[in-house]
C-alpha cells in the first residue's frame, strides 16, 4: 500500500532527519563507553568526556551534585534541539510531559506535607512550575492547563480519601501514560504507537514483579497497572495470586518472554537487580528500528531516546565511580547502544 506519509515526510522531516543522520555518528560508541568505565579516576573520565559534546558542561564538575546539574543542562540542550527539529507540539510533549508529571508529583506531595521542594523541580518540562505551585497551593486547580487538570484533580481526590502519598504517584503515572498513548495515536505513527505500547507493557511487568516482591495486595496492583498495553492489565490482575511462573506462561508468546526468562532464571525469588537495564534495553532495541527508516519522525524519536539513554549511562558511570561502586557492578548496568 502506498501511504501518503511516504511522500509528505521527506518534506516535513527532511532537514531534521538529515541532521540526525550526522549526529547519530556522534553518539557514544562501545569503545568510548569502555574507556569511561576503565578510566583510572574521575579526572580521567572528565578528560574522556571533554572529547565529546559533554565537555562544555563538565568543565567545573567535582561532586555528584555537579554531575547531576551538568547532565540536567545537557538534557535541556537535547530537548532544545528537539524543539529546533520539529514544531509539532505532540512530539515535544511526548518527551517533555514526563518532567511535567514529575513536577506535579513534587508539587502535590510538598503541598500535603507542607514542605518546599524547589530543589527537586525539573526544568525540562513545559509546565510553568511556580505558577502551577501557586494554583495548587490555593486550590485553583481549574486554572491549570487542560492537559494536567484532570490528573491533578483525581490524584488530590484520591489522596484526600486514602491519605496515602503513593496514590499521587499511581494516579499521575497512569495519566501520563494515557496522555502518551493519546499523543502517539494522534500522530498515526505505528512506530510511536508501538513504542508507547512497549513502555506501557514494560511498566506493567515492572509493577507486577516489584509488587510481587514487595508482597503488596491484589487491589494495589489493579490500581497501579496501566491501560492500553498490548497485554491487557486484566491478565496481570488475574494471575497475581498465582506463582510467578504463570506470568511467564501467560506471556510466552509475546516478545517479553525472553526478558522474563532472564529474570526468572534463578530459583524462586525474582532478581530485579539488573531488571532496569533489561527493560531499557528492550525499549531501545525497539527504537533501533528507527535507524533503518530513511526519513521521517522515527529517526528523530529514536535519536532523542538514544540521547536520553546515553545521558543515563554517563550518570551511571560517573556517579558510580564517585560512589566507589566496583567496575563490574557498573559494567553490569550499562545499557545497549543505539548505534
Amino acid at each position: 500500500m502506498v501511504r501518503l506519509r511516504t511522500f509528505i515526510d521527506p518534506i516535513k522531516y527532511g532537514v531534521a532527519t538529515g541532521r540526525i543522520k550526522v549526529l547519530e555518528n556522534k553518539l557514544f560508541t562501545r569503545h568510548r563507553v569502555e574507556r569511561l568505565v576503565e578510566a583510572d579516576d574521575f579526572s580521567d573520565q572528565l578528560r574522556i568526556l571533554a572529547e565529546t559534546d559533554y565537555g562544555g558542561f563538565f568543565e567545573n564538575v567535582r561532586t555528584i551534585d555537579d554531575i547531576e546539574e551538568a547532565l540536567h543542562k545537557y538534557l535541556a540542550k537535547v530537548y532544545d534541539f528537539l524543539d529546533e527539529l520539529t514544531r509539532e507540539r505532540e512530539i515535544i510533549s511526548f518527551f517533555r510531559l514526563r518532567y511535567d508529571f514529575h513536577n506535579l508529583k513534587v508539587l502535590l506531595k510538598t503541598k500535603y506535607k507542607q514542605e518546599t521542594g524547589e530543589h527537586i523541580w525539573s526544568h525540562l518540562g513545559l509546565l510553568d512550575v511556580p505558577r502551577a505551585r501557586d494554583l495548587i497551593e490555593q486550590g485553583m486547580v481549574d486554572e491549570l492547563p487542560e492537559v494536567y487538570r484532570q490528573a491533578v484533580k483525581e490524584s488530590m481526590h484520591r489522596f484526600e480519601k486514602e491519605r496515602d502519598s503513593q496514590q499521587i504517584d499511581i494516579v499521575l503515572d497512569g495519566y501520563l501514560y494515557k496522555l502518551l498513548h493519546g499523543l502517539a495515536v494522534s500522530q498515526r505513527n505505528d512506530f510511536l504507537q508501538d513504542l508507547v505500547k512497549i513502555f506501557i507493557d514494560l511498566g506493567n511487568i515492572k509493577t507486577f514483579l516489584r509488587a510481587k516482591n514487595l508482597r503488596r495486595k491484589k487491589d494495589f496492583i489493579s490500581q497501579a497497572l496501566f491501560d492500553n498495553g498490548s497485554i491487557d492489565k486484566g491478565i496481570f490482575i488475574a494471575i497475581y495470586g498465582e506463582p510467578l511462573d504463570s506470568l511467564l506462561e501467560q506471556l510466552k508468546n509475546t516478545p517479553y518472554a525472553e526478558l522474563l526468562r532472564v529474570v526468572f532464571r534463578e530459583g524462586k525469588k525474582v532478581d530485579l537487580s539488573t531488571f532496569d537495564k533489561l527493560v531499557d534495553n528492550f525499549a531501545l532495541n525497539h527504537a533501533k528500528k528507527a535507524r533503518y527508516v530513511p526519513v521521517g519522525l522515527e529517526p528523530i524519536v529514536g535519536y532523542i531516546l538514544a540521547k536520553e539513554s546515553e545521558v543515563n549511562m554517563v550518570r551511571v558511570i560517573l556517579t558510580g565511580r564517585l560512589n566507589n561502586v566496583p567496575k563490574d557492578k557498573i559494567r553490569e548496568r550499562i545499557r545497549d547502544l543505539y548505534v
Partner: protein
Amino acid sequence: MAIKVNPNRMELLKLKKRTEIAKRGHKLLKDKLDELMKQFFILIRRNRVLRQEVEEKLIQAYLLFALARSEVAIEVIEEAVLYPHAEVSVDVLQKTLMGVAVPQIGLQQKGTFDCYGLSTTPAILDDALQTFNEALPLMIQLAEVEKAVELLALEIEKTRRRVNALEHVLIPQLEEAVRYVTMKLDEMERSYRTQLMVIKEMVSEAAI
C-alpha cells in the same frame, strides 16, 4: 594509723566483727565482679558480631542505593521518597542486668517503605530500601547492646574500686587496728601482772 580506737576489749570485739564483715563483703563483691566480667565479655562478643552485621548490611545498602540513584535523575529518587507512608516509632524500656539498669529498645513499624510509583522508578530502589529496612532493627539492637556494654563497664569499674578499697585499705587498716588493740591489751595485762607480782613480793617481804 587510720582508725583511731580506744584500746579496750569492747572495741576489740567490735573491730573483729567489722573485719569479719569487711572480708565477707570483699568476697561477695569479688564474686559479683567476676560475674559482671563474664556478662561483659558475652555482651562485647555480641556487640562485635552485631556491629559487623550492621556494617555489612549498611555497606550493601549504600551500594544498592548508589546504584539506584545513578539509574535516574536525582530529582526522581528524591520525589519517590519525598512523602514516606511508613511510620517507625521507638520506645525505650528498662531491664536490669546484674543489678544494672540497661535500656531495652522496642521498634514499631507501620506501613511499607515503598511509597512511590513502581513503574517510573528503578526496580533496584526496592532492593536498596529493603536492605536499609533490614538494617534498622539491627542498628537498634546494636544501640541497645552498646549502651548495655557502656553501663556494665561503669558498674565493673565501680565494683572493682570497692573491692580494691576493701582489699587494700579497709581490711588492712582494720587488721592493723585489731593488732594494735590486741597489743595494747596484752601490754596492759603484762603491766598489770608485773604490778601484781611487785605487790605480792612487797606483801611477802612485809610478812617476813
